[in-house]
């Protein structure tokens, strides 16, 4: 196990490397640079040139890349071009918010998706199954920005049950439980929107995995032992059915982070997604690249975690 872990971590190094190169490549191909978003008649071209020079933007690409990598390896993610903020700090400030959002979405996806999938599978060919099937497809089919806006409209504006946006009630001085409740009331809509497609996918996946497992011989064995349906489903079948669902764990991470771009934007969530959108628009390379590196590391850790979980749930796999 330990070896497996080390091996996986080592394997991810070239991938990380590739990610940095690819990000850099994309950023280089993108026309325009941060200076150009600042075009201003009062800044003379000469001055612009000077500024570009001082930012190293006139160096050959590979020099820029190497400089950047050197800094990264020393733990310095650089500074934003326009505003000179330390990127590391910027991301660290945003990290908790994104974690809160994607984390709750993640939990929702599995906590809701798995039971529904099991229910659907055990009620195959029944009305409940068809109903859930259609619902899950609807969940996959709604564009998230639309769902988000719709939810704001209904739950925040029409019904007034939930706050429209943001992460905390500004100007409040909640502590302890009230603070938690405040967080919850803010996170519930965005995480639902973010989780929706994943809930549906987890549900579909659990359903088919469960159906597959239910047709296995060992389920027949369990039945033949005289176990009750619930024990058969929840002990014997579910444990096996969850093994393939774990792959979704890993896969859903980039999906959720990607979804966070739009969700955070709509709900004004102070996370990395909204930072990402801003940065792309502003051509803030250091931020984009650092963000990318960050998400990639998260995604890879997620996959690693999924592998470990895999091994944990499936005794046949021992690394």
């Amino acid at each position: 196990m330990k070896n497996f872990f080390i091996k996986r971590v080592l394997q991810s190094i070239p991938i990380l490397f590739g990610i940095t190169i690819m990000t850099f490549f994309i950023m280089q191909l993108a026309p325009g640079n941060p200076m150009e978003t600042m075009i201003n008649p009062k800044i003379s071209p000469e001055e612009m040139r000077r500024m570009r020079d001082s930012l190293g933007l006139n160096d050959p690409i590979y020099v820029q890349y190497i400089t950047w990598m050197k800094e990264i390896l020393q733990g310095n993610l650089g500074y934003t071009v326009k505003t000179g903020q330390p990127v590391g700090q910027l991301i660290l400030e945003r990290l908790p918010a994104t974690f809160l959002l994607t984390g709750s979405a993640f939990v929702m996806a599995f906590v809701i998706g798995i039971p529904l999938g099991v229910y659907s599978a055990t009620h195959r060919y029944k009305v409940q199954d068809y109903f859930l099937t259609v619902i899950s497809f609807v969940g996959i089919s709604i564009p998230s920005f639309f769902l988000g806006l719709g939810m704001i409209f209904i739950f925040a504006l029409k019904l007034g049950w939930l706050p429209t946006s943001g992460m905390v009630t500004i100007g409040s001085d909640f502590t302890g439980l009230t603070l938690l409740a405040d967080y919850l009331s803010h996170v519930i809509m965005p995480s639902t929107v973010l989780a929706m497609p994943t809930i549906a996918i987890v549900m579909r996946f659990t359903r088919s995995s469960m159906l597959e497992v239910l047709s296995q011989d060992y389920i027949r064995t369990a039945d033949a032992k005289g176990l009750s349906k619930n024990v058969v489903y929840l002990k014997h079948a579910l444990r096996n059915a969850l093994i393939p669902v774990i792959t979704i764990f890993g896969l859903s991470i980039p999906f959720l982070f990607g979804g966070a771009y739009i969700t955070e934007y709509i709900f004004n969530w102070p996370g990395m997604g909204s930072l990402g959108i801003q940065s792309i628009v502003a051509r803030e390379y250091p931020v984009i690249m650092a963000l990318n590196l960050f998400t990639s590391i998260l995604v890879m850790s997620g996959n690693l975690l999924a592998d470990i979980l895999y091994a944990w749930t499936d005794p046949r796999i021992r690394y």
Partner: protein
Amino acid sequence: DPVSKSEEGKDSEAKSGGSLTVAFNSEPGNLNPMVYATTSDTNVTHMLYDSLVMPDEELKMVGSLAESWEVSEDNKTYTFKLKEGVKWHDGKPFTADDVEFNFTALAHPDYDGGAFWRVESIVGAVEYQAGKAESVSGIEVVDETTIKFTTKDPAAPFLSGLFIGLLPKHTLDGVNPGEWAKHESNRSPVGTGPFKFTKWETGQYIELEKNADYFKGSPILDKVIVRFGDANTMLASFISKDVDITTVPVAETPSVSSLDYAELVTQNQLSVYYVGFNSKADHFGDPLVRKALAHAIDKENIVTSILGEYGAVADDVFPSSHWSHNPDLPVYEFDKDKSESLLKEAGYEKNSKGIYEKDGKPFIFTFEVPTGTKEREQSAVLLKQMWEQIGVTAEIRSLDFPTLVTKLLPKDDGGAQRAVTADDYSAYILGFGIEADPDEYRSYFGTNYQPPNGYNFVGYSNADVDVLLENQAKELDLDKRQEYIWEVGKKLAEDEIWIPLYEQNTPHVVNTRVKGFNPDFRGATFNAKEWSVE
């Protein structure tokens, strides 16, 4: 009259205190006015800092931190008398040294925050920047409350260039201005302004509290919270009363007008939206063609369909509420027949597909439309339809602003800027406005300011205009200067290198509990000191 006066007084007394949340669409990058000030930055920095001078409602410069000033006979030396007893938020006194520190720093060789132009005309600034001098010789501290600036030549825009928030010397002393961008004070600023910084929650809000010792008198509010986020989201927050003031997209104004606690307030931005042409590109070198296109545009209809009451037809490249606007200019009426006859006059013939062509080249061009402003994108679509009506095909190409810039200010393979060629672009739509001084137009229309030396990417060249532009820059007398600029406006309208389309004002929606919100071209928060809540 006395009644209303006493009422007003009662208002401000009784309602003193309270807190208010104002929302904007993007988060400030930093809170240092010397480092790339964007609108989102100045919305906050206006409340934190003061400048030496500032524009009044008519865009005339009046003193702010400066009590008064005198200009010498030769129009080159400005002696400022500073207000006394002004204190920084941390309690330290504000002195002439602070002023000198700020403006010297702008000329520092390593400074790259984009504000060098403000001091460029000062004697010795260029030398200092080139490293040939120890200090800027044209900046001179006379005593604690007096400072003197000397310019090389009479410079009309100089005074307006001093409209920039001043930083405390004691926090940045010894820090290389090249490193200012990275300095922590950008996120925990100290100024002299009406509000003090308290906290900044990244991605969420910035909180300010009142500076009771403010030298112009204490603000009414105890606290101002600045939030940032997508326009729709902020609007939703307004509706749910989490936000008191926010900008609304024009199209959204109907959704708040029905709310009994909402009030719409308009902010004039001193900006004009226009279509620009690459005079080097096919078709557009000929003023007849540009005029033909201008005649094909039903500006009135664009404004009513898209902007409604928040827009007005523009015929001048100078904003109509500014003194630079010449009320008497050639106007291109909406007249399709006129368009077509102008095209014919320019040598165009309609081909079998109903499109005009000349020398075998059909009049089809790419119309660059930057994304980001919905109304601008919509106008472009209407323009395309209108031009199609007269037999000219515009193919819309949407692109984001930085990308458009790479077309307007092209670079050679080595990354250095080069001159615009016919292939770089054909036509585009953009907005342009006066920030402080109409001298800004010089860089856009002066023959010598074509890329790579300026922003004259349309390649406009008119010797008369060049002279007028240079003259106005040296003319300190406002009336005379106005004459020069009116003449520029007229020439530009005659050549129609830009087709002005409309002026757009920004609607803000304000909770009725808020009093005194009165945004203008200087910024939405410019008068935050006067705001109060019920």
